[in-house]
């Protein structure tokens, strides 16, 4: 079923996902059977080389070629290199990391190699999260394919709730902001400071609504099929510092990098210099994972810089709880902390959204070069009502998540929530067929 779904987009890339699954299935078995450490290491290296090689070829080849040509041009030389113009197979960054986690876990003896190829192929290509995550760990997902599936009413209802919430976030919040973001970023030279700030804020809303909306739909669909996927977002814009933000944003990727990159290269062990180096490595690689563009690398580097003061002051694990826990409203200090963190995040998003570094710097330059205020029609006032609804719900669900919060509320409140979200989707949703942003990664 997952292969039919994936092949619908472009059947040729079925070969790639099939090859990737097959090679890791074989290498996983080989690692498991082999008792010689060096041989196990060779098999693991082959798996890593193959997967990162595919990712490098399809996602980064042209980037390196173009960067090389630009660099030689800067020195007055003309390099004659042809780029391949390869199409990026949708979801390659996600399933490559998922299948890599399998071989690494088998190598570390954290899980046994899968004996049933159908289970393994289903794990790599699992329909709900194939194209944009969450990036599941083999130790969480594979056992769920092996056990017998029994319909679970509560799980299915929770799944439906998440699908509704995810749809609202995608078609009302993210797609509603998309057009305004496009207008502001395309015309940044003529935008006043207020609109440049609005553009950055709306992009923060757009990318969160889009990606977390997709994740919720994926988790909801998986729940309907009887599977549990990991939570990928925990109301990240209510974070009190950047470290908390990264514990709440794209959790499946952050923890993947933590488990398979940060800890292996030393993590927070060793001298402070090494810890700082490791932190920069993980953020820069994370930026590069998002795309073959210097803007993503800069975005990663900027986040590492944000992280640095917390690391040096040893305050990066200060906010492990949820803001205003067991309270309705945050304190003034918490409001200031959240606002400051949000501003930092929005500033970094400018680089993420910009088409090039010069575009990003031009946009930022506009904050002091452009007039403070000049009215322009970029977004309907209705959108801000929707944004209000969204923020209110996000605040209310920050501790337990959407599904559990709704489940705990009264029948009347539950029905009101469903009705309100449904009517918002029908009367304010944008249905122009826009893709999910994270499909491109």
């Amino acid at each position, binding site marked *: 079923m997952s292969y039919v779904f994936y092949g619908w987009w472009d059947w040729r890339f079925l070969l790639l996902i099939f090859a990737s699954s097959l090679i890791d299935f074989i290498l996983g078995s080989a690692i498991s059977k082999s008792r010689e450490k060096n041989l196990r290491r060779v098999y693991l290296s082959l798996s890593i080389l193959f997967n990162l090689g595919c990712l490098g070829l399809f996602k980064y080849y042209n980037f390196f070629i173009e960067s090389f040509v630009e660099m030689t041009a800067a020195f007055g030389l003309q390099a004659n290199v042809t780029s391949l113009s390869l199409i990026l197979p949708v979801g390659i960054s996600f399933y490559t990391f998922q299948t890599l986690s399998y071989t690494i876990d088998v190598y570390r003896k954290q899980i046994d190699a899968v004996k049933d190829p159908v289970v393994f192929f289903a794990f790599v290509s699992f329909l709900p999260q194939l194209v944009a995550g969450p990036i599941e760990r083999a130790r969480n997902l594979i056992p769920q394919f092996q056990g017998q599936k029994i*319909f679970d009413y509560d799980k299915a209802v929770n799944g439906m709730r998440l699908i509704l919430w995810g749809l609202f976030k995608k078609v009302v919040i993210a797609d509603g902001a998309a057009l305004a973001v496009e207008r502001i970023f*395309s015309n940044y030279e003529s935008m006043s400071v207020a609109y440049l700030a609005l553009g950055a804020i709306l992009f923060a809303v757009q990318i969160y609504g889009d990606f977390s909306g997709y994740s919720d739909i994926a988790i909801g669909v998986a729940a309907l099929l009887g599977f549990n996927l990991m939570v990928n977002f925990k109301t990240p814009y209510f974070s009190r510092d950047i470290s908390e933000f990264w514990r709440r944003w794209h959790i499946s990727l952050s923890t993947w990098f933590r488990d398979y990159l940060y800890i292996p290269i030393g993590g927070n062990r060793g001298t402070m210099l090494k810890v700082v180096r490791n932190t920069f490595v993980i953020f820069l690689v994370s930026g590069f994972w998002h795309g073959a563009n210097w803007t993503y690398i800069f975005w990663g580097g900027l986040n590492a810089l944000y992280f640095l003061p917390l690391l040096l002051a040893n305050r990066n694990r200060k906010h492990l709880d949820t803001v205003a826990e067991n309270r309705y409203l945050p304190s003034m200090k918490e409001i200031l902390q959240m606002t400051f963190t949000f501003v930092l995040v929005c500033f970094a998003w400018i680089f993420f959204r910009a088409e090039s570094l010069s575009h990003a710097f031009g946009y930022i330059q506009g904050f002091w070069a452009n007039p403070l205020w000049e009215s322009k029609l*970029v977004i309907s006032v209705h959108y801000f009502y929707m944004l209000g609804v969204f923020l209110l719900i996000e605040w209310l669900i920050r501790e337990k998540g959407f599904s559990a919060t709704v489940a705990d509320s009264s029948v009347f409140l539950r029905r009101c929530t469903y009705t309100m979200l449904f009517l918002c989707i029908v009367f304010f949703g944008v*249905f122009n067929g826009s893709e999910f942003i994270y499909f491109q990664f």
Partner: protein
Amino acid sequence: MRKFVFNLLKTLAYLGLSYVMFVCALVFTGDGYLQNIVDARGGVGHSLVRFSEAENVSDVDVCFIGSSHAYRGFDTRFFDKEGLSAVNLGSPIQTPFNTYFVLNEYLEKVNPKVVVIETYWNMLVNDGTESAIDLISNIGFTSNMLEMAWEKKRDIRFLNSAFLGWLKYSFFDVAQKDIPHDIYISGGFVMSDTIANLPGFERKILSSKWDVHPVQMEYLGKILDLCQSKNIRVMLVSAPVTRELYHSVQKDYEAKYYNPIHDLAVRYGIPFWDYNYSEDVKLDALTHFFDTNHLTQAGVELFNQHFISRFKREVYEVDLMAETVEEEVNIL
């Protein structure tokens, strides 16, 4: 599982009911404008009056059709003065997709000698939903409009608006609203009493990515086939906009708009006059436009003078002469 399906159906029924109640509330409050629902009967564009009038028009020399550029750009009175009877069937944001159904509805009734289709590039980018809402709200649920509706069945904006319209007509008799600064002229033209563009307005044009919607090119071809199958002469015109607006899209204009339309016109052997590409009429952004793309009456006069003399010379009289020559040959 059974409990889940039962509760799911119950929830869907409940949500369906809440949807109906919400639309009913909009009918009675009269606030029929949200992002995905529009109450367009008797609204801007004067489509209600125009299409009611069109029911009683027949055998005209020229029929103009297209978006607001058509009904705000071609003043039928100037054509009458030159001895050409004319009717304007333009409507707000009317794209070729919509034009096809409007022509199916009115072409035989109006029976024009020449159909002038205004093809503003922005209309080729649009998917035709907003116009479909305007047309079905003002023309009503005729077979052609229902056929158009069928094509739009998957568009939530259209479905919501059509449902609101249907409910509203069942309860109220809606008349044409007064639109500030607009004067409807019998024959389909809408004159603006605004005499100038806002200074500086033309500099605030936001550029954005645009591509011609494939459906629109397909329907443009269908329109030309329809007219030619009924032996009605047809031509394409792009009415003038401010140079500033034109410059904001000029980078892609030739490749995405001008060349495909020009090629289509050549294929069908019909004229295509683009007043933006060639700039045959010199118009001033401040005095001849009241916004980025709509002409003031002074602008309309200049544009129409040029259009009429060229139209008579290169299209209308050439056509009549051809008929005369043909008749003479037949007599001989």
